[in-house]
């Protein structure tokens, strides 16, 4: 059951642990090039369009820095 | 001679090892030394701070409140460093990370590009040793003339291969301070 989805990442909340990146099945995420104001290099979306709203990234994020949106009508079975 | 130094920086910037190296070298130069790192509960992040005193006579309070010299390694620690600086204190800032200017005008400011000098030598981690060299030069508290020997006993044998770079860093710092 995969949907079309989108994630938002709170750059300032993110501590750059990168656990979301490894857990994304569709390689939506990667580490950003610029640090946030804490000095951490946060995760960012590099392939937003591939997101299937599976919530894996959200599940493992220790800092609840990610919000996952399901795009309605975006079901692609 | 008593040099009271307050060191501050972002955790992980080597504030603790800078302080330790500083007092170790001082001890080897025959001085009395004391070093108190403020310890916190957070494991990572936060400001690392230390009171560091070297003197040619017995040291009373190990707490530096009116520092003769202040080392500021990160932008976060500028305010705290300024607050501790005594009248006419010397403020050494890591100009690579501290862009803001100090608010106080009664103190002498030396801007040392620790990170870039360290990177030039090949390792940003030795930015702290650059600063230590600058501190010695600017305060005159330590001669550091036997620093090569001192580093040999300061670092465990497993780290001896890093000594040359550390010496270069110290030297770069001294030069930067002279030139600043």
């Amino acid at each position, binding site marked *: 059951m995969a949907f079309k989805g989108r994630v938002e990442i709170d750059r300032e909340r993110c501590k750059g642990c990168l656990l979301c990146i490894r857990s994304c099945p569709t390689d939506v995420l990667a580490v950003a090039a610029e640090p946030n104001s804490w000095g951490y290099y946060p995760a960012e979306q590099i392939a937003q369009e591939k997101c299937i*709203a599976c*919530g894996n990234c959200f599940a493992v994020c220790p800092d*609840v820095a990610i*919000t996952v949106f399901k*795009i309605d009508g975006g079901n692609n079975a | 001679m008593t040099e009271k130094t307050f060191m501050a920086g972002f955790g992980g910037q080597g504030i603790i090892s800078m302080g330790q190296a500083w007092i170790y070298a001082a001890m080897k130069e025959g001085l009395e030394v004391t070093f108190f790192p403020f310890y916190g509960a957070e*494991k990572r992040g936060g400001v690392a701070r230390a009171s560091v005193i070297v003197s040619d006579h017995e040291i009373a309070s190990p707490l530096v409140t009116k520092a003769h010299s202040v080392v500021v390694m990160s932008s976060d620690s500028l305010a705290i460093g300024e607050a501790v600086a005594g009248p006419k204190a010397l403020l050494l800032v890591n100009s690579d990370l501290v862009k803001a200017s100090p608010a106080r005008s009664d103190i002498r400011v030396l801007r040392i590009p620790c990170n870039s000098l360290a990177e030039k030598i090949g390792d940003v981690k030795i930015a702290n040793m650059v600063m230590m060299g600058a501190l010695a030069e600017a305060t005159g508290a330590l001669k550091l003339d036997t620093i090569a020997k001192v580093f040999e006993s300061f670092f465990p044998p497993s780290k001896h291969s890093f000594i040359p770079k550390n010496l270069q860093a110290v030297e770069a710092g001294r030069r930067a301070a002279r030139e600043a």
Partner: protein
Amino acid sequence: METATYKHPASLVPLQTKYCPGCGHGVIHRLITEIIDELGLQGSSIVLNPVGCSIWADLYFGTDSVQPAHGRTPAAATGVKRVLKDHLVVCYQGDGDLAAIGTAEIIHAANRGEKFTTIFVNNAIYGMTGGQMAPTTLIGQKATTAPEGRDPGEAGMGYPIRVCEMLATLEGTRYLARGSVDSPANVRKTKQYIKKAFEAQMRGEGFTLVEILSPCPTNWSMKPNEAVDWMVEAMVPVFPLGEIKNLLATDGVAKAGGVAGTAAGGKK
């Protein structure tokens, strides 16, 4: 149209935590608060946060909270729950807190069948105090007080304690499960364990505990991803995941699988 399907729980205070990058406490906080939200219990939940890195938990849980002495969380939770019988009482503990200094308190709360839920965060180390050996530290794992690694031999440092299996021998325990936050799948399973436990508590069943394997990258001296890998490779074999004991009214058949295997643990 978009819907936020996975979002910050209402019962979790929107603050940057003091935990290190990659620390498991954050995920576990989220799971607890999500369930509190789902059960509509924010206004009648009390979290007891221990002495350990999760000493900060009361900053993050948007509920009433009580912070007791190191290891005595189950005793204090007993006091709280006996007075506030209709509240959800969550006793949050680390492995030093629960399995070392607080051993007597957890065992007797469990044996009395106290009707609160313990969330036991097993990171195989003392996080807050900087990496000393915990009762759950693995054989050979290094710690500041086991500089050459935990040695049950000459140094007499003992073996990793399997808390769920030990508590399973007590009749007061109704639900004991071990989850992990290493992967999305295990995070989701862990959430189900916690939810079962909370629901059982609100039904007034006996003692419930969910142990959660959780990374401490800082004191394991690993990067977060290495830490997660190490959990899977090194910790899970010693601390098998699953429901160790389930005597819940709604769950039908009693399971006590994990225990017999562990009894002969001495041979492993």
